């Protein structure tokens, strides 16, 4: 494995990132005070329900937000470059080159009118302006072959609609990896796919990481995927990080009620099927007028255990978890471990 850090620092550092969208209805605070870092060769899993700001935060790393309609504050450092406010042309050279991204729905993310090969070569050419078209095409075939598309040299001229779902996602990955990026952001890469195909894709990602030693951010709402893929996990809720730490730690000893909720609400393959699921009650909050206290408070079954109205009034700080080891949690509860072991674990 390659050296995990550059100049002793993680490859990607995000500090106090906030992304806001001024809209007609008010300012949407999609991401607030988000900090994390990823090292080369490691995988960060970001989980959270729909609208929690997973995509928005990772698109900020890619500089994909419309600068006129978005307010981005904080610091994003990729290798040695500060991305926030970077001018267009420089950012363009980072995108798809140093950092690349694959998206959830491979069909709609591929241009229906261009052949797969064209789209991959285009990505190559945009960062290798001196390369010839045929080189680019060779490179495309090579990449398709690498991601396991059979008969890549023939399929390279096919159009996206001629590929099956799994193959499309492989093509997306090929496209993202064509310039050997050091960081790959996979935004729900398997949500639209069947389980068997999902397994294939996850395998592929792991193989590739092993081979190239790049960093991966995998965004998902499936804790199972995180469990299989990630070294570290970031749990997001309403635009904020609510829990962050090593995957093993967080998945086995979570300390935030929201993480508990995620664990208990999904049915499992083993265990008592007649055991009632424990959903997280209510609906996610609107990001326009977030409660000034803990954003999870309205849905938190344990909020009433706190004295006074603290949960609703005071925004909890991200503090180290009970067992240490870099585990951070944003919760007022004084004894989360205890609650988890006694009340939550039995329901799993």
């Amino acid at each position: 494995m390659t050296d995990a850090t550059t100049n002793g620092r993680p490859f990607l550092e995000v500090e106090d990132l906030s992304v806001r969208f001024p809209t007609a209805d008010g300012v949407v605070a999609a991401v607030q005070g988000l900090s994390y870092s990823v090292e080369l060769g490691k995988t960060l899993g970001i989980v959270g329900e729909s609208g929690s700001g997973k995509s928005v935060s990772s698109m900020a790393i890619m500089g994909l937000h419309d600068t006129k309609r978005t307010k981005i504050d904080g610091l994003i450092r990729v290798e040695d470059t500060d991305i926030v406010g970077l001018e267009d042309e420089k950012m363009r050279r980072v995108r798809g080159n140093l950092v690349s991204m694959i998206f959830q729905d491979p069909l709609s993310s591929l241009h229906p009118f261009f052949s797969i090969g064209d789209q991959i070569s285009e990505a190559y050419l945009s960062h290798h302006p001196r390369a010839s078209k045929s080189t680019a095409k060779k490179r495309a075939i090579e990449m398709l072959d690498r991601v396991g598309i059979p008969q890549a040299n023939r399929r390279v001229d096919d159009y996206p609609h001629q590929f099956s779902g799994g193959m499309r996602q492989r093509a997306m990955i090929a496209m993202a990896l064509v310039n050997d990026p050091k960081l790959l952001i996979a935004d729900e890469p398997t949500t639209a796919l069947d389980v068997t195909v999902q397994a294939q894709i996850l395998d592929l990602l792991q193989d590739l990481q092993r081979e190239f030693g790049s960093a991966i951010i995998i965004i998902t709402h499936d804790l199972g995927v995180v469990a299989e893929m990630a070294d570290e996990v970031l749990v997001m809720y309403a635009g904020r990080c609510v829990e962050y730490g090593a995957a093993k730690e967080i998945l086995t000893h979570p300390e935030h009620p929201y993480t508990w909720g995620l664990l208990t609400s999904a049915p499992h393959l083993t265990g008592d099927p007649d055991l009632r699921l424990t959903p997280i009650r209510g609906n996610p909050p609107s990001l326009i007028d977030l409660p000034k206290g803990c954003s999870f408070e309205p849905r938190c079954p344990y909020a009433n255990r706190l004295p006074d109205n603290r949960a609703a009034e005071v925004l909890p700080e991200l503090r180290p978890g009970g067992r240490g080891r870099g585990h951070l949690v944003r919760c007022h509860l004084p004894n989360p471990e205890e609650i988890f072991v006694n009340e939550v674990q039995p329901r799993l």
Partner: protein
Amino acid sequence: MSDVKTAPAAAGVEPTGDAPLLEVTDLVKHFPVRSSGVLRRVVGQVRAVDGVSFSLQAGKSLGLVGESGCGKSTTGRLLTRLLDPTSGAVKFLGHDVAKISQKKMLPFRREIQMIFQDPYSSLNPRHTVGAIVGTPLRVHNIVPRNKTLARVQELLEVVGLNPEHYNRYPNEFSGGQRQRIGIARALAVRPKLIVADEPVSALDVSIQAQVMNLLEDLQKEFGISFIFVAHDLAVVRHFCPDVAVMYLGKIMEVGPRDRLYEQPHHPYTQALLSAIPEVTAATVGTRRERIRLFGDVPSPIDPPSGCRFRTRCWKAQDICAEVEPPLTTLVTGHQVACHFAAPPTVEDAKASQIAAEVAASGDGEVPLGAITP
């Protein structure tokens, strides 16, 4: 809510004898594929559903799992007579639903309802919630017109929605709330059977559990039977005592969930189960030895001869290409359609991985019998 419970029983559909609630025999649905020539001849058939049989007792639920395109939705639509079957019978309380004329369908529509996957496209965006939930009441004349409002509000309450949202449009609701609206609509006629076509697939995990619990409660409360279509095996396992696994228009394995999940005998079921990522202390951080399938699902227009799964099966032998394995009942009490049905072993995972590598290095296919377990 008590009103819902005591709503007058559906008129018209009387059970004949002691027939099961639903009995499906050899159900087939082929969609014609036309040539692009002048005459637009039929050149092929999409064998979306190709001989599916099962039965369902009142008050029970059957889960239907399988990968995309295997014919789950088509089966569901055949059951609700949104499609006419190519052949086969769908007997509801002994009446063949597939043979009733469209005009006489109305009473049956009251008995069999449907919940859809996509909470965004299954609600008419231009109708208010009141209109959406009120439509079945109006069509089936369940309550007098002036009572509709009250009844709709009761239904909204039953599914946990604010009755005052009567005049709102669907787009003002979240996905989970919309799915509740869809459920209220299905519930309005108090059906005996609900075909739920992936009712929670589009929802967030946290919301998914709310809806699952709601469905569960409704089933207990009103004794409704479900055909529960899903691609998530864990969800199906949670909801249905009986589960059928489909592949390319056919049932591969069917039986009580405990047997099926613990002792899957069909290689496909095994592959499905092993592909599911799980959060267990054991799995975190380490990849399990899983069964890896190679290749893609073949086209339903031209399914493989013999066993349909053989093109992706590491166990496949010559016989699989020649003889279609029938659905046979095992000693464990569930039924499997496989020549080499056997409980999973560690070797399976290995063999499947070798097969996958062979496939990847070649042109994506593995010759029959190349890997002998």
